[in-house]
């Protein structure tokens, strides 16, 4: 993707891309079992490539997740599409700005790079080495408390997204370009379906993802299959750095991601149109108009704590989710002290779990804030205290607000549009 952007920004290109890019690399070596020496080496290699590209770059370590503010989990103010200016005018103004800065452009880029370097290496001016070790311990503890590889991968993705989002907001970027290829997106589509994230499928695999409000996540490479990209890299000699991932050399059935990947690639070998069929079907999904932005006057739909998609769990009786919760209750080891009247008490079920075992009381507060897919990830996490502080503080804040809202419920004037059985 980097090479393509470089090509697009060169002067000779007919339809030049009109934005100023920066690059971020997130170092996840600690989670993937790399030794510090290996991580340093990988970082050096990455830096060489990033510096050669000439764009401002940021190196972030996954450990910095523990220093993120709680605002990462809040949807930013939705930037309006544009003050009505036409496309041509916008392009003209951009070129004008660019030309003014053109004289000092090379120095400016170099400045940004060197500024980004100390920013990444010593966050907040603290000494990098000793703090990094403590954070690495915390990170390893967090991932150690997650029982399944599937949940680990999901958690890693969520944390990585938060880190990238925070960096984008801090540095003033309005869009993030991800390099997911067609093949990867097809795998992701089926994996999300298997993990219960079907409700947010359109946003997870679509071209643009605006769940964060102010930062738009865009996937420009979704038309290229992995095979094409591999050939491109080989034939054009694009420099690559290899880093082991969480599931490198894992056995085939270690996680849902691996199973789906194997399934899809296996099918693709026999029926070469598999991946593109899955991709095209996914393309037909589009985000519901309600997700585009809050309609004036209506309440903002509640969002999941971790993945920021609209919560799909506040649904009426008779839905599949209620059926799952009821069957969980009925097949649980401890018979509930007082069974609820019927399947219409989602909050009741949460309290049941809470009063049965004290240890899960904080978990019971946590779960209603999450969408179904994230709930499964958290259920596989043994120790909730090892989650990064921003997650816990944001969860506590939301629980308090929900409790407060419940207390003052009778005094609130509600719109007719709000359904009565909501809280």
């Amino acid at each position, binding site marked *: 993707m980097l090479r393509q952007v470089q090509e697009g920004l060169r002067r000779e290109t007919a339809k030049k891309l009109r934005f100023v890019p920066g690059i971020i690399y997130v170092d996840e070596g600690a989670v993937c079992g790399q030794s510090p020496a290996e991580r340093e080496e990988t970082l050096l290699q990455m830096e060489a490539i990033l510096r050669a590209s000439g764009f401002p770059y940021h190196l972030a370590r996954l450990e910095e997740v523990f220093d993120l503010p709680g605002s990462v989990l809040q949807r930013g103010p939705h930037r309006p599409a544009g003050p009505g200016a036409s496309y041509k005018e916008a392009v003209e103004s951009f070129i004008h700005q660019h030309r003014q800065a053109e004289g000092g452009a090379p120095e400016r880029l170099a400045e940004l790079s060197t500024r980004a370097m100390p920013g990444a290496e010593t966050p907040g001016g603290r000494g990098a080495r000793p703090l990094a070790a403590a954070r690495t311990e915390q990170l390893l503890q967090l991932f150690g408390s997650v029982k399944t590889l599937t949940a680990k991968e999901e958690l890693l993705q969520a944390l990585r997204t938060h880190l990238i989002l925070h960096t984008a907001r801090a540095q003033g970027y309005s869009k993030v370009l991800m390099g997911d290829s067609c*093949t*990867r997106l097809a*795998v992701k589509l089926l994996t999300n379906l298997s993990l219960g994230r079907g409700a947010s499928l359109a946003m997870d695999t679509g071209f643009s993802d605006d769940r964060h409000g102010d930062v738009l996540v865009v996937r420009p490479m979704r038309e290229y299959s*992995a*095979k094409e*990209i*591999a*050939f491109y890299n*080989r*034939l054009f000699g694009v420099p*690559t750095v*290899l880093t*082991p*991932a*969480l*599931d*490198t*050399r*894992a056995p*085939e059935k270690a996680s849902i*991601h*691996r199973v789906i*990947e194997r399934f899809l*690639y*296996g099918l*693709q*070998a026999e029926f070469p149109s598999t991946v593109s069929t899955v991709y095209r079907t996914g393309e037909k999904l589009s985000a519901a108009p309600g997700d585009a932005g809050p309609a004036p006057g209506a309440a903002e739909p509640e969002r999941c704590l971790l993945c920021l998609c609209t919560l799909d769990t506040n649904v009426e009786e008779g839905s599949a989710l209620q059926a799952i919760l009821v069957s969980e209750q009925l097949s649980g080891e401890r018979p509930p002290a007082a069974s609820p009247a019927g399947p219409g008490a989602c909050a009741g079920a949460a309290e049941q779990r809470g009063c049965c075992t004290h240890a899960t009381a904080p978990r019971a507060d946590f779960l209603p804030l999450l969408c179904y897919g994230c709930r499964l990830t958290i259920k596989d996490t043994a120790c909730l205290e090892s989650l990064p502080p921003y997650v816990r503080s944001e969860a506590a804040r939301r629980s308090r607000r929900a409790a407060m809202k419940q207390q003052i419920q009778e005094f609130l004037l509600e719109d007719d549009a709000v359904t009565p059985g909501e809280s």
Partner: protein
Amino acid sequence: MAAPMSLVVEFGGGAELLFDGIKKHQVTLPCQPEPWDIRNLLKWIKQNLLKERPELFIQGDTVRPGILVLINDADWELMGELDYKLQNQDNVVFISTLHGG
């Protein structure tokens, strides 16, 4: 009768992790009665070069789906896949496009 052949075998995209991290191998295939083709080459690689986890590279008779094979920078599907007869000084590249090795 096949004369001993020297080839350059390269691995990319993560496949080199199974071969001690070495990306480029200069190999010399010994003399043998049948002519060398990709099928035999794969068996030879499995016996001589592959250090661990053969199931991550080879599946049955052929490579695992998801591993691309390029012969002289051309897709092997154009050259006859497993039946392509190797020539001296050929360049065979195995690129893994899989997520986990």
